């Protein structure tokens, strides 16, 4: 039985360097971070501050050099690709700035893709995908290709895709970066709604307005956390 204030994400003294040729770039210089289950936090920082690197490590898309990372109580350390893929599929959902939908698959197939990697049958996963599309108000567009839809619609498809595997955490990298201001606000509404259902959210952004819509803002400068603000 997990405690009520259980930490979904628990990061202790994480260091990460990139080796390029003969030089070594020390990107994360000892990050400590605790995020509760159900929290919605934003991560802000200048370009090169290390915020994307942090997100990649959170998303088990990259390794770190030293420190500890626990996700939903599971230690994440030097996992082989197969285990990492399985965990990503089960626990995480991703929303990217440029949507990253597969261009030759239609909306429904894109949303269903995470379930394909859970070995769910075609009929079943397409059915579930339709449910999620409906929740996003995109039922009529199910058989359209991404290039036939607007940016806002595409991002909603991406969100539906992120939700379909019932993840515990959603990681968003500049989710409104490619959208106009009106659509951006709609997007944050959707994300807040999702957060209220209990899903932890980490949103990387450089826009102040977006950060204000989250409960907590974490500032990163030069590879270290400099501020944690409650909004």
């Amino acid at each position: 039985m997990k405690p009520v204030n259980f930490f979904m994400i628990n990061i202790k003294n994480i260091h990460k360097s990139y080796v390029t040729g003969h030089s070594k770039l020390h990107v994360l210089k000892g990050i400590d971070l605790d995020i509760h289950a159900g929290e919605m936090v934003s991560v802000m920082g200048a370009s090169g501050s290390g915020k994307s690197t942090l997100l990649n490590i959170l998303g088990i898309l990259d390794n770190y050099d030293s420190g500890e990372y626990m996700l939903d109580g599971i230690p994440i350390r030097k996992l082989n690709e197969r285990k990492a893929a399985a965990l990503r599929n089960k626990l995480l959902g991703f929303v990217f700035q440029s949507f990253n939908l597969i261009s030759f698959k239609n909306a429904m197939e894109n949303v269903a893709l995470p379930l394909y990697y859970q070995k769910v049958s075609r009929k079943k996963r397409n059915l579930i995908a339709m449910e999620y599309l409906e929740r996003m108000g995109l039922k009529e567009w199910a058989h359209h290709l991404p290039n036939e839809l607007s940016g806002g619609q595409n991002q909603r498809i991406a969100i539906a895709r992120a939700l379909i595997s019932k993840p515990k955490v959603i990681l968003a990298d500049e989710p409104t970066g490619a959208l106009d201001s009106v659509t951006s606000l709609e997007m944050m509404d959707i994300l807040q709604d999702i957060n209220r259902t209990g899903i932890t959210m980490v949103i990387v952004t450089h826009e102040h307005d977006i950060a204000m819509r989250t409960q907590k803002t974490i500032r990163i400068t030069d590879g270290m956390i400099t501020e944690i603000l409650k909004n």
Partner: protein
Amino acid sequence: MFELDKWQEIFSTVQKNKLRTFLTGFSVAWGIFMLVVLLGSGKGLQNGVAEQFKGSATNGVWITSGITSMKYKGLKTGRTIKFTNEDYNALNTSIKGHDHISSRLFLGNNLTSYKNQYGSFFISPCHPDYGYIKEVEMLQGRFVNNIDIRDFRKVAVIGEKVKAALFKGSDTIAMGKYITVNGVLFKVVGVFRDFSRNDNEQRRIYIPVSTAQRIFDGDNVIQQIAFTTGTATPEQANAMVENTKSLLSRRHTYDIKDERAVEIWNKNEDVKRFNALFSGIRLFIWIIGIGTIIAGVVGVSNIMMIVVKERTKEIGVRKALGATPDSIIGLILQEAIVITGFSGYIGLVLGIGLLQLVSSKMPASDFFKNPEADFSIAMGATILLIVAGAIAGLVPAMKASKVRPVEALRDE
């Protein structure tokens, strides 16, 4: 592996780049097409030449008396060598390892008749063993036997076509009837069929050599001796031929190196040379065929590398969503195998189709028959295709599986 989704994906990526996929697949299709057509043609050539060998034992040796062309021990050139029954006996006892032996006379075509049917047929006096050496198939009755030889019987074994020419209308039973050969009555004791392509072989009449010597030609003259080498290896058969040469050159006093004094045809040698030639041709064809296919496979591999590069972002997304390295490898490998397999299959079908067309439309020639690509060729080519496709896709697939999602998803 065989789900609809994977096929849809491959289909849509192919559709996006129709020309590129076509050009890639073309080189594989061409390679398989060439291989199949060449192999089939080689087979056709082989079949044609093999046909020439039919109608007499492949391990047969024919020794015919001729005229000397070299001076030897004071004797001039131009001497006619005459074989006798003693030569036949000498060979029979000295040459070890033969399983059949027969002497022969050449009487040429002779007027033969039955009642009021006439014809001119080749009369071939021989020993009983000649039936084995010549590989005749008895349709009725029997071939010449030892008692015929011992008792100088006047019996005849006639070819199918001889029977058809002499025994017509209501009187078609040849067995036991008497035909007149060159004025002498012979009793028909057998009807045969010969497998050689030469039509003349069917228009022959075999009679006992002893009878022929007594009635037609001078006593004790023979013109040819033939024997088969049994189970001897080509080297052993050659030794038997060398023994024959030394024996006869001693008996008839001619230079053993004189090839015109006594002409020897060792069919073993021909068959051996023939087999070696066609092995060589087949090897050559396979080398060319495989070379062409390799070129095609390299082409496919190149294209798959480009495909992987183009789909790097997509691969990154899939990994983020939970795709294992194995599933990414499967994705690329499957596309490579489909492209190679499909285009190779088209090459195979076209190649076999061409062979069938040639086979049916081409008139029968002396040296080309049934240019078929048999089932084993088709099977071999198909397996080759699948393996080639896997190889073509392997390196790109491995590269794809190593794509790091971080870098793939980095927004440009």
